[in-house]
């Protein structure tokens, strides 16, 4: 009923609307009244309003129309009517005339600038500054300078704000007003103070010392306006950030000022100060407490804006200092039912971050009720928060995974469903225990999934992960159901997935063949083609045979060519006798074409290991080295933006180490040939150089690789330092023609040293339940010892140093050290070369003089490995 009445009202208004049926042409005709010798100011005002209305509704005037209107508007300066003059100012600003037109009104505006009427003065300044250019500015500068210190606050503000805008284009003019602006900062009018402070800061923003002086003088308390106070707080925290180097001494400069602002009478200032404090670098809990307290009070405010501001700030704090926010948890929980869904969502996500393991179940119950009545975008935020919670508490995967699968079944749009599916995929990847249950949830989801994209992604993922599970056969039913029930795209990817199961699980092969053969009668070409292809590659005679490595590569290997490049190459390919050669496709990703992080694809690190492995085994010299244990991340050996960019990737094998040097030539006029890296291993005694694989040619811009292989004793974590020199033959290239000269010059280029360290022999492999893993390894090869680490900057710095030294994966979020704590324990896991599982428990303690002591307990499957870990730390 209420809605009905509203509708009627609306219609009535439309009828009354003075602008009903308004048309540009007609209004432009009407604008001729501006040219009348007898001006009817009220009529003119109306016409200008109509013009503004048209502009506001998105109508545009052509150049000619605009000029015409502008010229007739200038005539209106004759009128003495104040209201009309205001409208004239407005329309001039809206029309933004070109510079030759501006001259027409400059004199009128300058007259107004010096008029006795304050309203004229203020507005004329704003209009003139908006439309004028540098040459005119110098003419009016004198008046502007005066206006900055005008008695009337409106005039002063107008001049100051205009100054802020002019500063962007003509800084040198505004900088000459410094003295006047400084005077204006002391003005009694609140807003003048605000504008003056903003301008003064902008004038000086590139001069750190001046800003610092400004802040120091003003924080002693002469700023009255809350807006100006907020600005000052921002500038203060900027100064604090820049001077953060000397915060070793303990007291943070200006902290007292900010803390004082927390007791200001304006909530705006309190909020700004609290936010500034929470954003300190390395804020301590003592500094945080007063800020958190005022924010907590805001949480129960009656104003939604204030509640929102507070919960948003606390949410940010919770990311870095979850412990500091726990005091507010009770207030937060009551916000879950807040009318404003933004506030409720922020409260939920904050709780998810601060919650501890025991509270998870209760929290999930509360969220379940809440999920049904919020919009999709909020749900996505919640899903993300739950995913990170699950990664933090892997033990709780069961209840969290159940929650995800429940919401997956409910109504929702594509983005939301995608977020859930991505989360489940990430959980499956990172928490091995959750794999089976997660895959089953996904299977159930695709039974009734309306999004083709998600179905195909899940099928692909299922093909990669499914065959590795304990009982792959149970997935076959779900997959084959897709072949029966879905559209062609999904059917085709289901066929591929079936083939992958057939390739990996030999016992399933005959059954997969039966299913694939049925697909040969599909009505869609692609589905039939895929079925035929897979039947042939898998050798579809129905016998149980071991699948070739080649076939597996074909099915599971990723296409190492960017699709865009492949597409362009195929477009350029003209059908001739010569077949299309995929190797001719450029292997360099087009600029700005980052691979999108689809959750359903295998994690990036795994795929790089695969590509490295393929690359190395393709080089005959290295093919006998056996399985690749680990490849390090690339380490840069040159400074950025040098002539030649080189980075090194260390490949560790059981008995060998291969350095892969990735070189890029950044000089267009040069072609490098016979590129080798000469490695001096005199500081790495246990290594013996075995082979070098030079790079024949390195043209501009295209990266190339050269390799050096070393032999090392098996089972010994040999470490050492290697000095590198890049040697090559330089040939001049004519950039216009691209031809290189015949003769080259030998040259060399000093690179930085590379190192093999103990961490290179360790793979980062996480365990989901550290305690279980620890118990199952048993105490037989346990080694415990204590070490003094000497004085350290902070406890967390010491913890990180040890983690990096060992190169192991921190478990259960124990790498994060609570601020100001005096002791910490950290759990690490990894796999040592030779596939030996290693677990480490570290207990740290720090005393008042920042001396850090550490107790190290190692358990592994091999006694010698436990000793090695201790050796690493002892050295």
């Amino acid at each position: 009923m209420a809605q009905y009445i509203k509708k009627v009202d609306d219609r009535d208004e439309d009828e009354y609307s003075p602008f009903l049926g308004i048309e540009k042409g007609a209004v432009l005709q009407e604008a001729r009244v501006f040219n009348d010798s007898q001006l009817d100011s009220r009529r003119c005002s109306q016409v200008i309003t109509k013009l503004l209305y048209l502009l506001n509704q998105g109508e545009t005037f052509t150049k000619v129309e605009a000029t015409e209107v502008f010229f007739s508007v200038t005539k209106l300066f004759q009128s003495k009517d104040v209201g009309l003059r205001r409208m004239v100012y407005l329309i001039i600003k809206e029309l933004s005339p070109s510079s030759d037109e501006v001259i027409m009104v400059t004199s009128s505006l300058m007259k107004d600038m010096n008029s006795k009427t304050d309203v004229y003065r203020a507005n004329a300044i704003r209009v003139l500054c908006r439309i004028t250019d540098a040459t005119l500015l110098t003419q009016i500068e004198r008046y502007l300078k005066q206006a900055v210190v005008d008695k009337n606050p409106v005039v002063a503000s107008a001049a100051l704000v205009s100054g802020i805008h002019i500063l962007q284009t003509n800084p040198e003019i505004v900088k000459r007003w410094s003295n006047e602006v400084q005077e204006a900062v002391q003005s009694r009018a609140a807003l003048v103070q605000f504008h003056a402070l903003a301008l003064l800061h902008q004038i000086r923003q590139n001069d750190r010392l001046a800003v610092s002086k400004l802040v120091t003088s003003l924080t002693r308390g002469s700023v009255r306006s809350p807006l100006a106070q907020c600005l000052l707080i921002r500038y203060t925290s900027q100064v604090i950030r820049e001077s953060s180097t000397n915060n070793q001494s303990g007291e943070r400069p200006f902290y007292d000022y900010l803390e004082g602002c927390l007791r200001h009478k304006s909530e705006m200032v309190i909020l700004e100060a609290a936010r500034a404090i929470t954003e300190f670098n390395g804020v301590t809990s003592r500094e945080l407490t007063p800020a958190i307290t005022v924010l907590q009070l805001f949480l129960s405010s009656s104003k939604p804006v204030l509640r929102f501001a507070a919960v948003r700030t606390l949410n940010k704090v919770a990311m870095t200092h979850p412990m500091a926010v726990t005091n507010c948890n009770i207030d937060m929980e009551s916000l879950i039912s807040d009318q404003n869904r933004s506030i409720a969502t922020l409260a939920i996500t904050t709780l998810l971050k601060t919650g501890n393991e025991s509270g998870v179940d209760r929290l999930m119950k509360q969220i379940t009720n809440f999920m049904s009545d919020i919009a999709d975008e909020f749900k996505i935020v919640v899903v993300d928060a739950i995913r990170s919670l699950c990664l933090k508490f892997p033990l709780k995967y069961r209840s969290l995974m159940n929650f995800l699968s429940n919401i997956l079944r409910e109504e929702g749009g594509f983005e939301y469903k995608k977020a859930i599916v991505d989360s489940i995929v990430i959980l499956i990847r990172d928490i091995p225990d959750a794999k089976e249950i997660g895959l089953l949830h996904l299977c159930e989801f695709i039974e009734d999934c309306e999004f083709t994209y998600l179905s195909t992604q899940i099928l692909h993922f299922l093909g990669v992960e499914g065959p590795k599970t304990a009982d792959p056969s149970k997935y076959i039913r779900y997959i084959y159901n897709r072949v029966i029930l879905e559209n062609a795209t999904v059917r085709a990817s289901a066929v591929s997935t079936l083939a992958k199961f057939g390739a990996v699980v030999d016992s399933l092969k005959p059954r997969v063949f039966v299913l694939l053969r049925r697909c040969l009668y599909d009505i869609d070409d692609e589905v039939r083609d895929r079925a035929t292809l897979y039947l042939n590659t898998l050798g579809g005679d129905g016998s149980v045979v071991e699948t070739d490595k080649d076939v597996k590569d074909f099915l599971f290997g990723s296409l190492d060519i960017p699709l865009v490049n492949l597409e362009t190459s195929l477009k350029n390919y003209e059908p001739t006798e010569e077949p299309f050669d995929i190797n001719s496709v450029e292997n360099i990703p087009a600029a700005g074409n980052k691979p999108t992080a689809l959750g359903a694809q295998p994690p990036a690190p795994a795929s790089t290991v695969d590509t490295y492995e393929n690359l190395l085994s393709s080089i005959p010299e290295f093919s006998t080295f056996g399985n690749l244990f680990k490849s390090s991340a690339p380490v840069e050996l040159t400074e950025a933006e040098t002539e030649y960019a080189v980075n090194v990737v260390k490949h560790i094998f059981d008995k060998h180490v291969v350095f892969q040097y990735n070189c890029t030539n950044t000089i267009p006029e040069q072609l490098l040939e016979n590129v080798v890296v000469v490695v001096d291993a005199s500081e790495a005694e246990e290594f013996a150089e075995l082979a070098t694989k030079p790079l024949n040619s390195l043209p501009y811009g295209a990266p190339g690789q050269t390799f050096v292989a070393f032999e090392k004793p098996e089972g010994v974590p040999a470490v050492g330092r290697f000095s590198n020199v890049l040697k090559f033959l330089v040939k001049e290239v004519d950039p216009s023609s691209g031809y290189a000269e015949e003769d080259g010059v030998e040259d060399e280029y000093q690179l930085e040293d590379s190192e093999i360290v103990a961490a290179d022999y360790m793979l980062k492999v996480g365990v989901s339940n550290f305690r279980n893993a620890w118990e199952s390894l048993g105490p037989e090869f346990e080694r415990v010892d204590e070490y003094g680490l000497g004085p350290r900057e902070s406890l967390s710095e010491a913890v990180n140093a040890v983690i990096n030294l060992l190169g192991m994966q921190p478990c259960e979020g124990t790498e994060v050290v609570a601020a100001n704590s005096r002791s910490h324990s950290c759990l690490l896991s990894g796999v040592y070369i030779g596939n030996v599982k290693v677990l480490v428990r570290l207990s740290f303690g720090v005393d008042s003089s920042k001396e850090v002591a550490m107790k190290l307990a190692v358990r592994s499957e091999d006694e010698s490995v436990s000793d090695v870990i201790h050796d690493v730390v002892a050295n």
Partner: protein
Amino acid sequence: MVKNVLLLDSEGRRVAVKYYTDEWPTYSAKLAFERSISCKTQKTNARTEAEIVMFDDNVVVYKFIQDLHFFVTGGDCENELALATVLQGFSDAVTLLLRGNVDHGEALENLDAIFLCLDEIVDAGMILETVGNMIAGKVATHNLDDGAPLSEQTITQALATAREHLTRSLLR
């Protein structure tokens, strides 16, 4: 830094709007923003207190009076309370200028005042004035003059009117 100030009707159509950034470069981008923000806030109750929502990394504070919807948008690092003050100033000023009859029809009748009001609140993103009384006061200087008819007219105009009256009475 204020990104835009919007006055829409209850269906999300423009009454008067002002943008201060290039974040929404085209007319259609602006319209799309207005439509979606109106859609998102439609069901909320922002009558007694200003409400707030995050929208594409922007903070939007809004308030409804009758069938007029007021919005103020700022970046996500903006002080929410500062934006709320601007919103309060805007809606107060409009209420004063429309003499308490705040509705769509009345707003269109006095659109000139609303345009001037927008002009007085924010100048190219910089907050100019936040107190409703002050804003309305600056705008009203001329609206009062409007109400005083004869004093502002020139003699010729007055004569013309007089002549008109005369002819009319003669013809009767």
